[in-house]
């Protein structure tokens, strides 16, 4: 079977949420589609398909990427973390907990990407200022919250992590 660019599917290996996955996909297929439709990980969302909204954000080797802009071939051999990989069984990640408690999720569609952007931010800056949080999340659009309760959630998560 050939794709719309006339190319063939290839077998691509990548580590997703700590597990090795092999998928057959067109090399230029978007990582987002492979995650959602091949691997059934529907937590990453498509909001714009052009890297503006950040709803499809995932971590690739620790870097925050818009998975709608990443051809899956580029993800071969990398380690991907999606929202499904954050909670450990029934225990929520500290950011997931803080989002719940601070009102960081309203309609929830930007939430997976937003939380991954926040994970990325706190990995780089464990104790960010409010301005650094606002700057760090500015690639992820949210239409519901006006961001305030998201920013508060990230600050709260940073506080909790530092007090552990």
């Amino acid at each position: 079977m050939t794709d719309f660019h006339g190319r063939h599917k290839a077998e691509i290996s990548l580590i997703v949420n700590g597990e090795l996955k092999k998928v057959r996909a067109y090399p230029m297929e978007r990582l987002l589609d492979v995650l959602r439709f091949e691997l059934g990980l529907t937590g990453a969302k498509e909001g714009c398909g052009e890297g503006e909204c950040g709803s499809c954000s995932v971590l690739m080797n620790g870097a925050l990427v818009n998975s709608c802009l990443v051809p899956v071939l580029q993800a071969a051999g990398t380690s991907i973390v999606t929202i499904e990989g954050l909670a450990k069984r029934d225990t929520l990640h500290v950011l997931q907990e803080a989002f719940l408690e601070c009102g960081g999720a309203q309609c929830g569609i930007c939430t997976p990407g937003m939380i991954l952007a926040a994970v990325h931010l706190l990995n780089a800056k464990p104790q960010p200022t409010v301005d650094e949080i606002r700057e760090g999340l500015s690639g992820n659009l949210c239409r519901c919250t006006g961001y305030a309760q998201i920013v508060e959630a990230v600050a709260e998560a940073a506080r909790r992590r530092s007090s552990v």
Partner: protein
Amino acid sequence: MNTERIVGKSVPRKEGRDKVTGESKYVDDMVLPNMLFGATVRSQVPRGRITKITFGPGIAWEEFVVVSAKDIPGKNCIALIGEDQPCLASEVVNHPEEPILLLAHPDRHLLPQAIAAISIDYEPLPAIFTIEQSEHRFEIIWGEDNVFKTYLIEKGSLDGIWEKADYIVEGEYSTGAQEQLYIENNGMIAAYDEAQGITVWGSLQCPYYIHKALMALCNFPAEKVRVVQMETGGAFGGKEEYPSMIAAHAALLAIKAGRPVKIIYDRMEDMVATTKRHPSRTRHRTAVSRDGKILGGEIDFTIDGGAYATLSSVVLSRGVIHAGGPYYWPSVRIRAKAVATNAPPHGAFRGFGAPQSLFAMERHMDRIAQIVGLSPVEIRRRNFLQAGQATTTEQVVREPIDLGKLLDRALDVSDYEAKKQRFAKQNQLGASKKGMGIAAFLHGAGFTGSGERYLSSVVGVEGCADGSVRVLVSSTEFGQGTKTVLSQIAAEALRLPYENVSMAQPDTLEVPNSGPTVASRTVMVVGKLVQSAALGIAQTLISSGLLREGYSPDAFRAACQQHVAKHGAIRSWSRYEAPSGIFWDDQAYRGEAYAAFAWAIYIAEVTVDLTTYSVSVDDFVALQEVGKVLHPLLARGQIIGGIAQGIGFSLYEKVVWQNGRMQNGQMTNYIMPTSSDLPPIRVFFEELGNIHGAYGAKGIGELPMDGPAPAIVNAIEDALGVPFDSIPLLPEDIMVGLAASSPVSSMGGGE
């Protein structure tokens, strides 16, 4: 005994855990076996007669399911208030992006190529694109006069007031279209089988609107149509009426294909083809006394409805009723009309006409203040509606609202007077100027006038086999917290723990029609019905002898289990009844327009950079009286989110039109605020209560959309000394406005 244990507390959001773990299922997350993907072929011209449709070479057309208007089993319309909007255009098109054909194929990657291979020939017809062109009837494109709807509100007499006036203040104000820009694009899945009929799952606000539209379209009885809401990723009114169109398209494809069909819009299709906020123009002419009192006036409010009537008449209604703001008008004449243009129909968006007419009113108050020589604070104070006075529709304000006191508190927390003085000094120097702006406003909760009576909403509460309670409503969750707050209300009414109450997913097979999830009506109107339906469950258990008054949650659970084991599920229903003493005259447009108003004072502090002409909002104070706040965290989230959209409406979000089509249908070039763009938004509540709402609640969803635009533009005028009366107000508009106002143009400077 503490009588309010659950309402008033920020309990965990019902569906919150699924949202933060990514487990929530939105429509695009759902896959059915054998499912096809659908797409829409749309008009490329604003108005014309379709003369020929050609299916071009290079496409295996036999693999595609193709639907045209001929395949519609029932009426070719999207039934709403009227029936003028076709589901698929057959002979003529009336706006760009109007749906003409539908395609479905198992491989969604093939759909764009197939759409590109279809060419449609048109005999072009003249089109009109502005309110003015429509009014001047350059071309009649709808009905006999391009007018969807008019209203006239008359209070008192204007005879002699212009002669009596010390000042006559005139102004014209306009607002642009605004895209709802929910982050989840529209989408629907439909499946058909002969025995069960059609089922659709989708991203939507109003299951029963779609139910009604599909019945008419397919000529099916009610039981052969089922509508199920999936988790919905934002709506803001943008998923009120257009989802009926998408559901209709998915249904037609599914019926013809005999397989399930999924239609998911991409961002550009969603932005260019679906509804937006109505552009508006408002003219004010006001007679004012020397001491700044409004004696009377004329207001002319006009909105651009696009090519079909859809919801324009009701948007216009809310707009016209709010046009006089929170002020006392001894006499007034307000004319309103919605006109047709060859653009995709404009539709519901948070605020629903009120942000448009209130922008005009609040800009006009600042203009009056300036002409009379009073401060923006004083002019408002002297004209505020007082308890016991009547609004423009002669609705007497029965609640003890004191807007002067509300204003005092907002001035205090914003440090208004001190800042204004400081800025006046600072502004004489420097390359940036700062200003303060006020907006005072009100927002009616629930359907307008007789609307709630016509809706006649029904709510159910069910006692389940495990002894828990389930709320049955068609009210949808799309971020506001519907599931959480209605559960709180049921738990409160039954004195049960919040965890013992669950919400049925809106599914027309399971839930009654509790009306659409719009108009800030869910908590106030539906919530009140949930409260009484919940009490019905306790009454049933008590009268059956299984439960005693003053019961404990454990006793309730046991009684409920016993009752269900013996008699099956217990269901208690509650239907809306208009409160007595509420009078509304649809002909005269007079009477009690809303069961309750929320009231607010917003104050914006801005800086205008004179090098880039960009505006930053530095501080924003939002003080509102919203009855009882049932969930402080969610309420604050609603207010801040609404203000963020209002800031976008004022300063960022500009739809660029060309021949009726949006040219900037991408997030790259239609800009909404990011987390770095927004100021600290400080939210304050006053809680007077409300006898018509559940536990004293009023509606709050739309209120915060009304105030930001006038507060911000008033602040910009305060900073620059130049008035701006049109939004969105982008840096280039400020540059042009400043250049036009200065006697020696500083632009172009070389000549």
